[in-house]
């Protein structure tokens, strides 16, 4: 194991963590502000990826594809909100879980019907396709650096929005006390719709960004959704700051864990057993991390309510 390899994995972990943040940010606000559990948030990530793939193929340019995918993802999120979600806010969590589960099943099958089961691949944009040398003689793909930059940019933008604008103030107030916000005479319905659409767009953006480096396929949002849940639970529901830190933590632990666990175990076990145990253990690490954090702090690292 070399240090450069470790640094590369850390960068991959950072990139993965930032993608998770883009998904978790919208989700945590939806939970926090509306007390609404939206399982269908993951498919919005998938929809973003498919839209990017489709528009890229149609226009021949990833940049244009991304540009078109964003408003479409937003519109799609708003459509879902108006058609279905809006009727579920007052319902029990059980109803919300089941209805949004139905949406996942529908959309996963829908994209399979439209684009087939085989993964789509999206070509990397020409200008971002190379690698650039970093410190210590290692080089890193430009596109992944672009994802890191975009993720950090969105995080900064969100931070500004939530902390320094009127709507951000309402969202924060809504997350800690929704009844108070509606008592102030704010149109809470509209606030919900805005938060929802915005969250859907962020998830769609994340999906579009990873389209060139991951395979775009039905069900790609499911696993990411559960990881986003882990992020939110660790960070504390409704907390953007918590989601950010937890996303990076989960991204790094997951990526580095798969890399380091077998190596560490080699000190205890023979190589074959170590690599097998390591492979079995690594995907469980983030869940064990979640369990440990929850055991100490049942409402996450940065609880918003009370």
């Amino acid at each position, binding site marked *: 194991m070399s240090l450069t390899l470790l640094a590369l994995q850390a960068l991959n972990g950072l990139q993965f963590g930032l993608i998770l943040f883009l998904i978790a940010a919208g989700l945590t606000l939806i*939970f926090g502000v509306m*007390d609404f*559990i939206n399982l269908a948030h993951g498919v919005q990530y998938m929809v973003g990826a498919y839209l990017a793939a489709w528009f890229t193929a149609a226009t021949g340019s990833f940049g244009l594809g991304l540009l078109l995918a964003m408003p479409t993802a937003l519109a799609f999120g708003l459509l879902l909100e108006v058609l*279905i979600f809006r*009727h*579920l806010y007052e*319902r029990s*969590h*059980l*109803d919300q*879980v*089941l*209805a949004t*589960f*139905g*949406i*996942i*099943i*529908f*959309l*996963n*099958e*829908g994209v*399979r*019907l439209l684009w087939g089961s085989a993964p789509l691949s999206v070509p990397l944009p020409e200008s971002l396709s190379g690698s650039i040398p970093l410190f210590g003689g290692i080089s890193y793909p430009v596109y992944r650096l672009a994802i890191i930059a975009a993720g950090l940019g969105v995080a900064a933008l969100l931070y500004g929005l939530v902390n320094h604008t009127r709507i951000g103030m309402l969202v924060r107030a809504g997350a800690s006390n929704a009844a108070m916000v509606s008592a102030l005479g704010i149109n809470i319905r509209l606030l919900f719709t805005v938060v929802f659409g915005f969250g859907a767009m962020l998830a769609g953006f994340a999906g579009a960004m990873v389209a060139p480096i991951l395979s775009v396929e039905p069900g790609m949002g*499911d*696993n990411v959704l*559960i990881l986003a*849940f*882990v992020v*939110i*639970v660790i960070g504390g*529901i409704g907390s953007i700051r918590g989601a950010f830190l937890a996303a990076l933590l989960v991204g790094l632990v997951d990526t580095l864990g798969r890399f380091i666990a077998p190596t560490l175990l080699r000190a205890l076990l023979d190589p074959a057993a170590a690599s*097998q145990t390591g*492979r*079995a253990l*690594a*995907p*469980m690490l983030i*869940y*064990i991390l*979640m*369990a440990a954090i*929850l*055991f100490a702090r*049942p*409402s996450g690292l940065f609880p918003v309510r009370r």
Partner: protein
Amino acid sequence: MSARLRGTLLPVSLFLALALVPVFAKLGPESFILAIATRLVILALAAMSLDLLIGYGGLVSFGHAAFLGIGAYAVGILSSHGIDDALLQLAAALAGAALFGLLTGLIALRTEGVYFIMITLAFGQMLFFLATSLAAYGGDDGMTLSSRSQILGHDLLRSDAALYGLSLGALLLCYLLCRRLTASRFGRVLSGTRENRTRMEAIGFQPFRFQLVAYVMAGLIAGLAGFLFANQTGFVSPATMSWQRSGDLIFMVVLGGVGTLHGAVAGAAAFLLLEEVLSHWTEHWRILFGPLLVLAVLFARGGIAGLVGGRRG
């Protein structure tokens, strides 16, 4: 009392119908009918245990398929090492389910509401990934069982009818057990906590202990279902405990009627019927199934048991 009569009418007729399945199976493609019916009974068992949590405890667990998977893997792993005794396999299945329930329950039950849903989902997924990385036991692809479990060295379960009988017996036994349980002192504390946790604490109960016991019990029953499931399919794979399966189980509970126990049986039957009918129609049957789920939530409250009547007040 008519409400009480109607309340027993549905479960009695459901179990009667299930008891008659082997008779009717002889009239048609016997092994096909028995396979479907066995699957129904096993899923009903798992869904019923989930109803104990959702309907009585108010605990929406989205990781219940994990217990099904533990039961199935207990059979698969032991049989791959040449241990095919049903009692040993069942003991392992139940011990595994109890341990997993205890460990995850200790953490998940410290939280409430959406946290609980997400955490149970995450723990279920954790086990799923563990199964996919068990290369020695088939990894992603799972493993085929060489034979069904042996009872005291005899291959009694080789007959489909015998496996069906065992499964139905298990369902009936667990149903009666759950019925007693929900009306007992323990069950009352569980339901009381669902309605008003603070009130229960204010009269001196510690809800956590009761919820934990209920969570482990539900896990045990689902573990038993997993043991049967592996024997029915002859195949064990991570898909047994996918999170979609957990969602399906919730759907069965809600479709049948939350908090009725027998509703889970009706829900499992309706679910399998839907799956059969829709998938005969089109390979993309899920595109119809999804919206059906949404519509069921939006418009059909109370489930099948609610329609037939005799719903718990």
